[in-house]
């Protein structure tokens, strides 16, 4: 029998339907892989009992001919930013240690309603703030990949680093991620998997621990483009509980995968080729262009003139929204409380000082400052205006093209040790190619394009028009076919 943990969602769906294996077998295989790969620290909480219960229920439904949908019985991991009823949800922060939500997030509820099996909650950067998964209060995640010439442990990217590592290391068939400035796409690129950030409003944010509410969006992290299409269909949809949830038709995303991109107009933004872009990243990008042309697409150069200001814009807007969102962690309603006989303000201050990590505090302080009296106009309002210009750049570009191709990240994965030492701004630069689409609220997908000279995965990003995930997915599938990326993480190879 093939290794069950290596199946794609589509293969598992078909195998379950044919009765080749059961959800209990599939789930058991994933739980065993999670146990064997504990050293990667991909999960904060595992829930084997819940998983096996749901797997049994799925098998029982199927036996009665009542299977629910394409993910019924599929074992998946949930980023520990989604509230899950009765299962600890921490956002990788000490301040939420022991927090057991009394409700289920809309996205995880939809997956559950579709029969998906939850294996556990994956590690992340604290409150999803980071690009290396080194700010988690529960320890860093280790990538299942290693460089050919160096066994130093590498970062899986972030913030959805636990989800990325779990999918890449075959501990689950797929996982949920969330993306505020690149937190699905960059870890997907770093671990050689597919990650899709849908259009803002496509997936409900209800029940997801909020970071920056005008940017946060949930999406699938999978081992194939088809799987991303399947899983997005199970996660997305209008939700009255999120006022920014879009009441638009939910297409059958898998049907969009026609394999035919003849005549598709693909834009290549010249501003994404800054001086000093790593040679191998530029080469991969050129390779991607060739694949699209060979498949019949028409590639044109476009201009997104405000690209170089996107990162600074993001690092005003996201911390500002975060400082406001994270005000709720006050030691009163849930989570940590530190008290030593002082007054209410002292309780707040001590609780938050003890509960938040360094990067989170840094962003709360920046956010508080840029929103404070006297500085609001100079920083926050200015950033919102530049954001409007960035969004407009894309609007103009999409008059000319159907989809935009860029690299996902400016480098291949870096060592954990080095990541802990770099200054904040150098770390922020990881998101230079992903942040613009976030600011504009556009759907964007990262797919593995090839390996770097050191044998590590590199990703390519496709950005689409609002609510046109279908074109993004169709183009991605054509590229996936051309790339033929079959490399598996170092730790999964023979003799490892």
């Amino acid at each position, binding site marked *: 029998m093939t290794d069950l943990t290596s199946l794609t969602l589509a293969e598992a769906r078909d195998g379950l339907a044919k009765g080749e294996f059961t959800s209990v077998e599939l789930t058991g295989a994933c739980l065993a892989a999670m146990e064997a790969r504990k050293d990667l620290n991909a999960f904060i909480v595992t829930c084997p009992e819940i998983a096996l219960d749901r797997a049994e229920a799925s098998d029982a439904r199927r036996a009665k001919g009542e299977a629910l949908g394409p993910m019924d019985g599929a074992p998946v991991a949930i980023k520990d930013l989604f509230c899950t009823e009765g299962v600890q949800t921490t956002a990788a922060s000490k301040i939420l240690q022991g927090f057991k939500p*009394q409700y289920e997030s809309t996205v995880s509820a939809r997956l559950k309603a579709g029969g998906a099996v939850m294996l556990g909650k994956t590690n992340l950067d604290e409150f999803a703030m980071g690009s290396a998964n080194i700010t988690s209060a529960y320890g860093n995640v280790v990538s299942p990949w290693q460089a050919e010439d160096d066994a130093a442990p590498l970062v899986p990217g972030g913030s959805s680093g636990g989800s990325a590592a779990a999918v890449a290391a075959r501990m689950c068939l797929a996982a949920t991620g969330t993306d505020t400035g690149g937190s699905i796409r960059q870890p997907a690129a770093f671990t050689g998997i597919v990650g899709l950030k849908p259009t803002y409003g496509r997936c409900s944010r209800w029940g997801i621990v909020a970071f920056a509410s005008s940017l946060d969006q949930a999406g699938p992290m999978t081992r194939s483009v088809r799987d991303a299409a399947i899983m997005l269909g199970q996660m997305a949809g209008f939700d009255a509980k999120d006022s920014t949830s879009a009441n638009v038709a939910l297409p059958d995303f898998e049907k969009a995968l026609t394999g035919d991109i003849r005549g598709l107009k693909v834009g290549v933004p010249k501003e994404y080729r800054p001086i000093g872009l790593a040679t191998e990243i530029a080469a991969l990008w050129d390779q991607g262009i060739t694949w699209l042309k060979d498949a019949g697409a028409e590639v044109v150069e476009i201009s997104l003139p405000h690209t170089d200001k996107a990162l600074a814009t993001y690092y005003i807007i996201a911390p500002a929204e975060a400082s406001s969102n994270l005000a709720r962690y006050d030691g009163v*309603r849930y989570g940590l409380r530190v008290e030593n006989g002082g007054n209410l303000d002292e309780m707040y201050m001590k609780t938050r000082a003890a509960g938040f990590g360094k990067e989170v505090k840094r962003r709360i302080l920046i956010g508080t400052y840029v929103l404070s009296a006297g500085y609001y106009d100079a920083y926050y309002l200015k950033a919102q*205006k530049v954001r409007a210009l960035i969004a407009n750049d894309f609007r103009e570009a999409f008059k000319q093209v159907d989809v935009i191709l860029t690299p996902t990240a400016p480098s291949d994965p870096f060592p954990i040790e080095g990541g802990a030492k770099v200054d904040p701004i150098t770390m922020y630069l990881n998101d230079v190619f992903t942040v613009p689409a976030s600011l504009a609220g556009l759907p964007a997908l990262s797919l593995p394009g090839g390996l770097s000279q050191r044998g590590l995965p590199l990703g390519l990003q496709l950005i689409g028009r609002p609510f046109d995930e279908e074109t993004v997915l169709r183009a991605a599938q054509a590229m996936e076919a051309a790339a033929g990326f079959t490399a598996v993480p170092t730790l999964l190879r023979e003799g490892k």
Partner: protein
Amino acid sequence: MSLDKATVRKIGFLARLEIPEEDLEGLAHELNGILGWVEQLQQVNTEGVAPLASVSETRLYWRDDVVTDGAMPEKVLANAPDGLDGYFLVPKVVE
């Protein structure tokens, strides 16, 4: 502009974050680095540009004015560090 220790202390209070005296200097340095970097936005001409608060183009919709949720005090209080008789407890506020 440059943040000094006193300003960092003040922001810390606004954000209700206790900052130990010995950390103020280092934080001021870090925050100044970030603020100096985002200063580049001042180069962008934004005259006549309306600020973008949300990319969501869908209009907020009206719903029926009915209760959709509630009557679950025990669930609301389930994770409270301290509570009594259906209330959250906090340190004494009024002397």
